[in-house]
């Protein structure tokens, strides 16, 4: 019964609600401010977390976040892996892992930006270029689009042929010096540094040269087809 009785109205000042409202205001302000200045804030947090051991394990900008659309990540088996290269091409091929692994590779260091607001700077990639694939399969004149089908169904995305052959774009098999890890798309992922990460399809199992444009997984949810960093998905160039 005692708990039901009214607690005598405490005197004092409403500091509690000030703490509540202050916390809410800080949070809402942080959504607004970080949306504008997330780059510099991330750089600052990264500097601090690099200086203090342990912090980099939990700091929000410490690195990758793993986004998937299916419950099970595809598993890579070198003995059974196949990369299908198909569509409007003169020489469609299905490559085994040893054949993929034998393709000429290049390396690059590029930043990775996610449309949700996080970034990873200076990622080392190693993989093959569009040119290597094009020389192999010889696309027809009407093959203006390249579709990357993930083995993580139903993930898929598409670039124009010009975007695929642009500098910095590669199909990577190594990240930071080691073979791609499962959560990063082993054994093959697309890397499109000029665009947000949803264009960089993980677990690539088929590369198809198409005549028609088609929406990718996120485009079907309203995201921009041309996902250029800083000038797509509601952002304008600054």
């Amino acid at each position, binding site marked *: 019964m005692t708990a039901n009785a009214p607690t005598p109205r405490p005197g004092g000042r409403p500091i509690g*609600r000030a703490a*509540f409202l202050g916390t809410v205001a800080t*949070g809402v302000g942080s959504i607004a401010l970080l949306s504008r200045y997330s780059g510099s804030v991330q750089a600052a947090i990264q500097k601090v977390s690099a200086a203090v051991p342990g912090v980099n394990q939990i700091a929000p900008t410490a690195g990758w976040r793993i986004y998937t659309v299916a419950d099970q990540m595809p598993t890579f088996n070198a003995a059974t892996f196949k990369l299908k290269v198909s569509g409007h091409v003169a020489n469609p091929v299905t490559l085994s892992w040893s054949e993929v692994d034998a393709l000429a590779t290049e390396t690059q260091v590029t930043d990775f930006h996610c449309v949700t*607001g996080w970034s990873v700077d200076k990622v080392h990639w190693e993989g093959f270029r569009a040119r290597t694939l094009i020389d192999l399969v010889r696309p027809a004149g009407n093959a203006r689009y390249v579709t990357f089908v993930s083995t993580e169904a139903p993930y898929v995305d598409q670039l124009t042929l010009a975007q695929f052959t642009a500098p910095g774009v590669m199909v990577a098999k190594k990240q930071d010096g080691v073979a791609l890890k499962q959560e990063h798309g082993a054994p093959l992922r697309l890397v499109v540094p000029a665009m947000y990460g949803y264009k960089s399809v993980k677990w690539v199992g088929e590369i198809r040269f198409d005549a028609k444009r088609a929406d990718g997984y996120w485009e079907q949810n309203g995201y921009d087809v041309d996902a250029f960093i800083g000038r797509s998905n509601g952002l304008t160039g600054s």
Partner: protein
Amino acid sequence: MGSPAPERIVRFSGTVRLAHWLLASTFFVMLFTGMCLYLPALSRLVGRPTAKAWHLWSAIALLVGIAVLLLIGNRRSLTGVVRDADRLDQDDVAWLKGGPRRLFDHDDAPPQGRLNAGQKLNTMVMLGLMVVLAISGTLLWLGERDTTYRFGGSVLTHDLASLAIGFLVMGHLYLALVHPTTRHALRGMVVGDVDRAWAERNHATWAMSESVQSAERNA
């Protein structure tokens, strides 16, 4: 028989305790699934769509549960806790100024109400963080479906607020389960009442007002 049972006074109503344990259980589901969504090392532990579903449905269960308790529970006892947490008097301010020293030397603490000043601020800041998490979480959910609602600051704010509430809960768990002078409070949150002697030592203002009220009732 041993010593007589200590005299007890009721600290938290059944509704308040239900609300607390509903919050605690949904919090830990959200913490665990949130960590699976957040830390690459845990990304393979639970599938992302499954972790997201548990994360979202626990948030909804918490909201619906609190709404139900406000509708059919002892509403006054629930809002009473928030009213208690809202106002800080001179003793509370002095208590806060004593600061961390009190963790080691408890003797000269200024008298406190049913909630001490730390508990008041913890309650209100935690409620504020829950609102921030709800807002940023809703934006993350909407932003996945429509890029109009996607803001670069939502995910960082959600993460920072989660870290902040995680540290508060760690402190709360230490005080509720480990710290010698405060851990008796767990009894109040499990069965509802606490030893009067403990209340007189740690929440003197409240214990005194409870005596006055029960004396008035008996008069």
